[in-house]
């Protein structure tokens, strides 16, 4: 199940005003995050859900709002006991990036981001092995730890641990013993 969440629309609904296109202030961020979580929870899902968080209609985001809308959203949903929530962030540009990068570094987070020309990449705080694993999973589409370890020439246990950690961070999806990139379903 994929939800498309247009942050510009959520912002206007949340503030009950059509004049604002800036994600600024912590109270605004908190309200926007609550609305996103309400939308995610209102859709009956199986054990996995994917949401496209679309920044296209957002002019700017400040640090406080980025902390609420991105960092807390990702951290809260990653800790959900039963539902696996995955996010792909769309429409982010340089004007958004300063604030987002700062909060990702602060919390040690990473995001799956869809680039303008299509395709997804990881941004944020990542270990070197996580970056290599991500590129490998993206290339292979769906992979077992042993196969990826073979391709990368790295110990299978290390790659297995890395993939498991990335799954817990909701940066890749897990189906049985195999892993695949989140963006494949977007």
């Amino acid at each position, binding site marked *: 199940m994929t939800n498309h969440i247009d942050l510009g629309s959520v912002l206007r609904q949340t*503030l009950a005003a059509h*004049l*604002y296109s*800036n994600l*600024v*202030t*912590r*109270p*605004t961020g908190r309200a926007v995050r609550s609305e996103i979580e309400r939308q995610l929870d209102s859709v009956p899902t199986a054990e996995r859900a994917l949401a496209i968080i679309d920044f296209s209609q957002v*002019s*700017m985001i*400040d*640090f*406080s709002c980025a*902390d*609420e809308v991105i*960092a*807390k959203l990702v951290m809260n949903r990653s800790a959900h006991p039963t539902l696996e929530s995955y996010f792909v962030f769309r429409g982010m540009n*340089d*004007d958004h990036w*300063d*604030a987002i990068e*700062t*909060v990702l570094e*602060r*919390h040690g987070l990473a995001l799956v981001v869809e680039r303008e020309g299509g395709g997804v990449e990881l941004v944020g705080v990542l270990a070197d092995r996580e970056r290599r694993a991500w590129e490998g999973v993206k290339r292979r589409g769906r992979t077992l730890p042993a196969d990826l370890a073979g391709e990368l020439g790295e110990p299978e246990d290390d790659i297995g641990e890395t993939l498991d950690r990335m799954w817990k961070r909701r940066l890749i999806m897990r189906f049985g013993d195999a892993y695949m990139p989140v963006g494949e379903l977007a």
Partner: protein
Amino acid sequence: MTAVVKVPPSLDEAGFEQVLQQVADLPEDAKMLLDARHTKWASPYGLGALLTLGQARDHARPTFAVPESDETLSYWNRSNFFYYASDLYDLKGVVPRKSPAGDSQVLLPITPVTKSEDVHEVVGHIQQKAQQIIATELGIDPKAIVGFAMTLSEVCQNIIEHAGRGGWVMVQTYDWRKRLGRRVVVIAVCDAGVGFRGSLDTAGHRAPTDRWDDGAALEAAVMRGVSRFRDPGRGQGLAGVRKYIARWQGKLSVRSGTARIAIVPDWDDDAPLLENLPRFPGAQIQVTIPERAKR
């Protein structure tokens, strides 16, 4: 007996300290006349701080003698100063009527900040004018504009999140030939709330040393991002402001209580930390971004 407090001809951060020196020993309920008749110029900080002083002296409504210079009166009027000052002071002298058109050269006239929606208004207003004034006239890289709006948002939020009462913001560009030889754009945000130490005290946020005063509270909040909230996501706002001013060779100064801390760029020789200043409530913040140096 009314104490007469002289406002200096040039009212910026240093000029306002001269005002506070005179106010410091006055009892809270003392009658006070603030004499600005000979004041010729005021920075956004100066105007915001004057309003804050009126707000802080609410035990005995002070009197304010307005500037005599027509030019100064006109500018202060276009900056909305008298509109808000009339709520706090008994104004004495010829006060011009509010100009409905405002001043296209004032990036953001004095604007009250009491709630989150005010910050949206302020940021929206700046975005409309920033391209013309910041990028075109000051030659500041257009990439700096978004960061400027973010910085403005974060310093305004300091009032909402920490002050406990409303404050004011103003943004303006002006020539800073004497010190810098260039134009600058300045954000001033002033409130008379609980201040940095008061805010951190509410969380029992004492530093693990014997030293805990306004200077230590400013160092903790401004330099280390300590916040009264336990949430680890807090304290990023001022950290972001620091990052922004470092990138654009700007300056940040924050006064609270009896101390003032500053992040000082190469082009300035201000003191990084001043202590034992006259006590003044709340927080007064100034961000200065200089025009791009001509090659």
